[in-house]
């Protein structure tokens, strides 16, 4: 198991944002997470990536490391990368610097080499830049490398955030609504790029997405959250027909008799 949580809980005051969730994810899987707004999807991401501290009694394990109370930068160094729903782009940095800052955990040299400015540093920096330019041209942003990230369009920003998250060569990539606000054509394009990247880097993916078509088409398995609890898990086809899911997402399925009653009132 690459990622495993046991009894994962988080409460904000009286609100149980995450309530005793057991979650397991094997390697090389593409897992979709769906659920209504406020069901705890993003909280789950924040807990796993260490941005929030989980409540006592929780347990999170990633790639053999116990990361329950590990600070986020250490979790990242184990090979867990994520994107944010609100992008959190480094607006005032150039596109190439955005991507190169994602490389941080893999930077090979030590601080004092950098202070002294040895030749080896600049060689390594150039190698990093070349590699990152390759990544940028892969997602189609190479022409914009020297521009500020704030000058990109919405779709380009989504691609840049993706590239920045990939830069650290993660084992597990968690995407928080990668396709939000994109037009259908762009969504297809983005998903194609994500799939290519998965093949290229051997990633395991967790995708939060509201566009159900994306989830059903690309994911091997789907987990459904509602009110901080896991209400269903399985292949997309199983989940689609699960009554609890339909109830949470679409409202209750009624038979004819109930429908007639409801309409008569």
């Amino acid at each position, binding site marked *: 198991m690459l990622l495993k949580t046991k009894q994962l809980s988080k409460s904000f005051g009286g609100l149980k944002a995450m309530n005793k969730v057991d979650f397991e994810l094997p390697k090389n899987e593409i897992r979709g997470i769906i659920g209504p707004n406020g069901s705890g999807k993003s909280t789950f991401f924040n807990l796993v990536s260490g*941005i929030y501290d989980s409540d006592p009694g929780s347990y999170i394990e990633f790639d053999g490391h116990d990361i329950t109370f590990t*600070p986020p930068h250490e979790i990242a160094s184990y090979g867990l990368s994520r994107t944010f729903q609100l992008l959190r782009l480094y607006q005032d940095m150039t596109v190439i610097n955005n991507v190169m800052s994602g490389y941080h955990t893999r930077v090979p040299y030590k601080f004092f080499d950098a202070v002294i400015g040895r030749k080896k540093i600049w*060689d390594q920096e150039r190698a990093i830049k070349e590699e990152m330019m390759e990544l940028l041209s892969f997602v189609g942003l190479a022409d914009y490398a020297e521009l500020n990230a704030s000058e990109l369009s919405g779709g380009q920003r989504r691609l840049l955030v993706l590239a920045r998250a990939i830069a650290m060569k993660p084992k597990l990539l968690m995407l928080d609504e990668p396709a939000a606000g994109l037009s259908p054509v762009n969504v297809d394009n983005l998903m194609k790029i994500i799939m290519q990247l998965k093949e290229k880097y051997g990633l395991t993916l967790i995708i939060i997405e509201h566009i159900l078509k994306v989830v059903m088409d690309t994911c091997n398995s789907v987990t459904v959250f509602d009110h901080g609890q896991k209400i269903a898990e399985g292949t997309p086809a199983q989940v689609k027909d699960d009554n609890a899911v339909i109830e949470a997402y679409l409202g209750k399925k009624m038979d004819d008799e109930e429908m007639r009653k409801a309409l008569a009132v």
Partner: protein
Amino acid sequence: MEKFKSVIRDYPFIAFIIAFVILAFVPSVVFTDVYQSHLATLIFVNIVVAAGLNIVKGYCGQVTVGHVGLFAVGSYTAGTLFLYLGLGFWVTLPIAIIVTAFFGVAMGIPSFRLEGPYLALATLGGGEAIRLFIENGNFFRSTFGISDIPTPSLMGFNFDSPDRYYFISMTVMIIAVYFSFSILRSGVGRAFMSIREDPICAAAAGINVKKYKILAFILSAMFAGAAGAVYAHMPPGYIHPNNYTVIEMVTFLAMVVLGGLGHIWGGIIGAIVITIVYDLTRPLYKYQLLIFGLTIVLTILFMPKGLGGFIDRYFLEKRFKKKTGTEKT
């Protein structure tokens, strides 16, 4: 030319040696009187402080308004070491740098919890506390200031006049700028910038936010400490608490803002411009603060990335046009 460029790229210190040689000839070739050497020394001291301030404020995004306090720590470490132990420049400079680094840690700790204007208030308090501590203790010769701090001498040659001390300040400045360039152009500079832009995302990308914040404070404190020691030993070797007030802080801030926050040349351009303007407007001393305040406000409004960013923008647009054949709006 291409070969020369690639050599400079691999060994940037060669460029600094060239700058050193050129600057070494400036006093004998360009300057007409001693006062200009004195002014040049002031410029170099300000460059060191501003380069340090640019690391913590421009790159790491931590608004500190107490930097002048660290500058004072550097000066008074050198001053008191001379006063009580009779130590000379070559000993006081490294000690001043180390002592100021510790004060930098203290100044940086509030940044773990505070940001923006709140951090500015905390550091302002820190800086003023240092000044008041110096001003009200007889240990530091409060009201009289420390005088006759000796200039350094090397192998029998005494740097005892402004046109000789120029070489000391210039050397310190070039070394400091070299360090700041190598730090900021490496991955460390990128980590600083990501913390400025978004600390949460930086943490998720594997950057130890606290460590790098405190590192930025320590580095900039070391710069301020070095500048302070150079300033204390500058002929005529006199320091007084009145040289380390909020007014000086505003001047330092104006340098970094005008030069370009988060631009690698930012502090340097700003220090040169502001120090010269400050000197030329001495007859209007009543309005100087007004001028600097306005400079900060107007620069932030109309040139948010300062002179450095302005120049960059020009070249970037030119290159973009050449590459894509289109106008970038």
